[in-house]
């Protein structure tokens, strides 16, 4: 068995499930539909095959994730990723962090924000707009949420409008969801 990765990294690990993925050859029509498996597209990750155990939520989850991360207008793609990064820092989801920190770096062509977060975690010192976004994402991700009216005021002061703040709430909340699945149903391990 490969070693479990404990530290944050931008190298995307392999995700090793703790529960049994469904067997694609025995999948029901509803599972194949939710998995979007077609004769020309039979590549499905083990993670999605695990989620196919609960086909009704898998079916609604994919359009929701895509809309929150990729819908037009509002908050930039990179800043939505920063919401995901804030949640993943609080929830310590190494796999989610690797995916979204590397995507943030690609989108911004700047690694300094992610480097600061990897070094100092939720206390990282960041440029003003990124700091307001990250701080809000961290506080909203706590249980119970610690986000306060002052955090919304700080986002507005940093130049975010109502739609941008809504998009940040959505991407942060979404990673409260994704972190809990990824981090509890499997382990991030080195790719072999």
């Amino acid at each position: 068995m490969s070693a479990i990765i404990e530290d944050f990294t931008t190298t995307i690990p392999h995700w090793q499930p703790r529960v049994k993925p469904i067997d694609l050859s025995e999948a029901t029509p509803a599972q194949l539909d939710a998995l979007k498996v077609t004769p020309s597209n039979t590549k499905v990750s083990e993670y999605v095959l695990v989620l196919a155990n609960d086909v009704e939520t898998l079916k609604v989850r994919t359009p929701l994730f895509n809309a929150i991360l990729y819908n037009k207008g509002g908050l930039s793609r990179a800043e939505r990723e920063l919401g995901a990064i804030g949640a993943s820092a609080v929830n310590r989801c190494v796999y989610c962090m690797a995916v979204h920190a590397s995507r943030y770096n690609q989108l911004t062509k700047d690694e300094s924000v992610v480097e600061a977060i990897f070094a100092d975690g939720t206390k990282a010192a960041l440029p003003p707009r990124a700091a307001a976004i990250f701080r809000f994402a961290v506080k909203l991700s706590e249980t119970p949420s610690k986000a306060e009216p002052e955090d919304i005021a700080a986002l507005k002061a940093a130049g975010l409008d109502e739609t941008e703040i809504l998009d940040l709430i959505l991407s942060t909340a979404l990673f409260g969801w994704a972190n809990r699945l990824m981090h509890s149903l499997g382990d991030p391990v080195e790719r072999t």
Partner: protein
Amino acid sequence: MALVNEVVFAASGLTETDPLVAALTVREDIFAATEAAHDASLTPTDPGGISHAERAALAVRIARQNEAETLVSHYRALFETAGAPAEIAPLADPAFTGGDDKRLTAILAYMDQVAVTPREATAEEITAMQAAGVADADIVRLAELNAFLAYQIRLVAGLSLLRGAA
């Protein structure tokens, strides 16, 4: 406006006349998908080994752990709709840890860990459920319920703040 009838809007205190509602319609597709995810997590057509009443009671428990009072009320009402079986009712109390029931003890330990301290979740909570006879498919159903609630609770917390700031 259909939005105000949806669970997260009601729980965030948003009414038809709220000026924020117009701004939120930009993301109408997301709110529709959120409502569909609520139904798939709480009242699925095929609930597997986790009944609608158990799901609603667990949702009350997790909403309470998050101090999300409006959602506590919503899930209490859903528990009543599911028939409010007396043997399931204790699950809604965060102080109840399963008593002598091995299946329930393992399920509640997992649900509490993932809801409240997900960063500390380990393989042990999963193997304890498997040892107590919880099927892997039901473990995934519980994970999805827990994960959806984490999203919904934070969405409501965020919308409530945004409403207050409008």
